[in-house]
């Protein structure tokens, strides 16, 4: 049996993991399901392209690939600046909208508002960039053989390595630093967190920033491997939530493992059942988890 679907699923899962970490942290620390999280993925992808284009207009810079990869250092720099920009977008949304809703409305108001934000942000991208798909690079990448009859493009391998490093880094941040402790404390009991001297509002800002930066980077990864469209983020929303809930809300390793399971399950479905069933995988996983183990693989007991 050809195991190529495993390799493809792993790469997809790694990209999903970057988004799912943000979903799980927002859900745990702010106590609402942010349906606009997918838009941070799209905005990160488009901001990177826009930045590179604008710099190119002024300086004549044309992004070139580095070695066997389709993008180079200049592009990565644009991706980092775009990630910070996406983080700023998230902070602005919190200051203008979500913080006010938290102060005087129930969680469901924030959820409904996030639907509105999602639609607006997507429409704005369509207005600015049209809904035509874009590609970061026209170069054709040749997949290299990895043994065991598996193949992957250099870009896929780079994205996989980067996603693993980032995920491990964020996991360590949460388990070993004071900011991580504070985030876990706020997710467990915000009132007690304030009582012991934690600035809960600052922890919430850090959560937005971290989630949006990771989502933005995952958008860039999608752009490198596939294409970018204004709807790319919202199409990933269901798998993101499935991964976060499968892993257990609030758990970074859980979100990463959940994302890899979803990615591989999707790839296996495409390979053995049929591409038209791909979108059903996340729904099935969600239903099964909520029926059998609602707290997910690594979630804490309520």
């Amino acid at each position: 049996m050809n195991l190529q679907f495993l390799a493809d699923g792993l790469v997809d899962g790694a990209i999903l993991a970057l988004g799912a970490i943000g979903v799980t942290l927002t859900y745990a620390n702010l106590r609402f399901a942010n349906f606009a999280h997918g838009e941070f993925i799209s905005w990160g992808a488009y901001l990177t392209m826009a930045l590179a284009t604008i710099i190119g207009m002024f300086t004549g810079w044309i992004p070139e690939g580095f070695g066997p990869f389709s993008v180079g250092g200049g592009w990565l720099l644009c991706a980092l600046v775009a990630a910070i920009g996406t983080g700023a977008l998230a902070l602005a949304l919190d200051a203008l909208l979500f913080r006010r809703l938290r102060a005087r409305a129930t969680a469901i108001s924030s959820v409904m508002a996030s639907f509105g934000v999602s639609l607006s942000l997507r429409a704005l991208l369509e207005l600015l960039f049209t809904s035509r798909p874009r590609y970061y690079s026209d170069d054709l990448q040749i997949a290299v053989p990895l043994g065991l009859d598996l193949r992957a493009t250099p870009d896929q391998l780079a994205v996989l390595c980067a996603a693993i490093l980032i995920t491990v880094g964020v996991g360590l941040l949460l388990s070993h630093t004071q900011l991580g402790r504070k985030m876990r404390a706020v997710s467990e009991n915000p009132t007690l967190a304030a009582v012991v001297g934690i600035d809960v509002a600052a922890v919430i800002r850090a959560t937005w920033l971290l989630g949006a930066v990771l989502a933005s980077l995952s958008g860039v990864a999608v752009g490198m491997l596939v294409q970018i469209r204004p709807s790319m983020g919202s199409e990933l929303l269901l798998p993101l939530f499935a991964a976060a809930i499968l892993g257990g809300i609030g758990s970074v390793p859980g979100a990463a493992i959940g994302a890899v399971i979803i990615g591989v399950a999707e790839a296996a479905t495409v390979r053995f059942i049929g591409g038209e069933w791909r979108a059903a995988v996340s729904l099935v996983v969600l239903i099964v988890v909520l029926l059998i183990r609602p707290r997910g693989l690594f979630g804490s007991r309520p």
Partner: protein
Amino acid sequence: MAGYEPATPIVKGVDLQLARGEILAVLGPNGAGKSTLIRAIAGLLIPCDGSVHLGDVDLTRQPVHQRCAQGLAYVPQLENVFANLSVEDNLALAVDRMSSTARRDRIRELLSRYAELAARTSLPAGRLSGGQRQTLAVARALMARPQVLLLDEPTAGLSPRAVTELTRQLRDIATEGVAIMLVEQNVRAALAVADRVLVLADGQTRLTGLPAELSADPKLAAIYLGGRTTALSS
């Protein structure tokens, strides 16, 4: 001081002062406004009237987490530890403006004082016994070396032995110059630990005095137990 629901003051006309090293127990029947009072001082409720001062600093408009940095530590009655975090992480959380070495030293210092915690530093706090949780909550409150320690019904749900242990701990803390205020349902435990007692009923101060005076005062039983004086005589 007035209550937090507009137009329905729960606490009204309570005036109290705490001195360094003093333990004040606030007693009163259910619904007297004890918890409202301590929560207002801690900053969890914003009073419509009245003020909270620590030394020369007016804390009345400061948010909860800033009062903490000013030297006010509060131990809530329920859910007063982070159950999913380890004992050590619970302690480490409590101080922000401290270098990581200073934080580690302070944790070690407190663990040497509370041996029952020292044996369980990496255990999630949710797996501690009731008495151990209370000890952890008190130790965490001490992390930032507060000037004032507020405790909401610290003996609730504790075994008699754990109550004795807590009493000893609170006396030790007061000896170091920390002002302690505790709100209690458990009259006997409160009279045993306090230097001074304040009895609340219907949101107002009804009695104040020394524990020895009050335990003999029939008015205390009248307020507290609806007149059944026998319950206190043992």
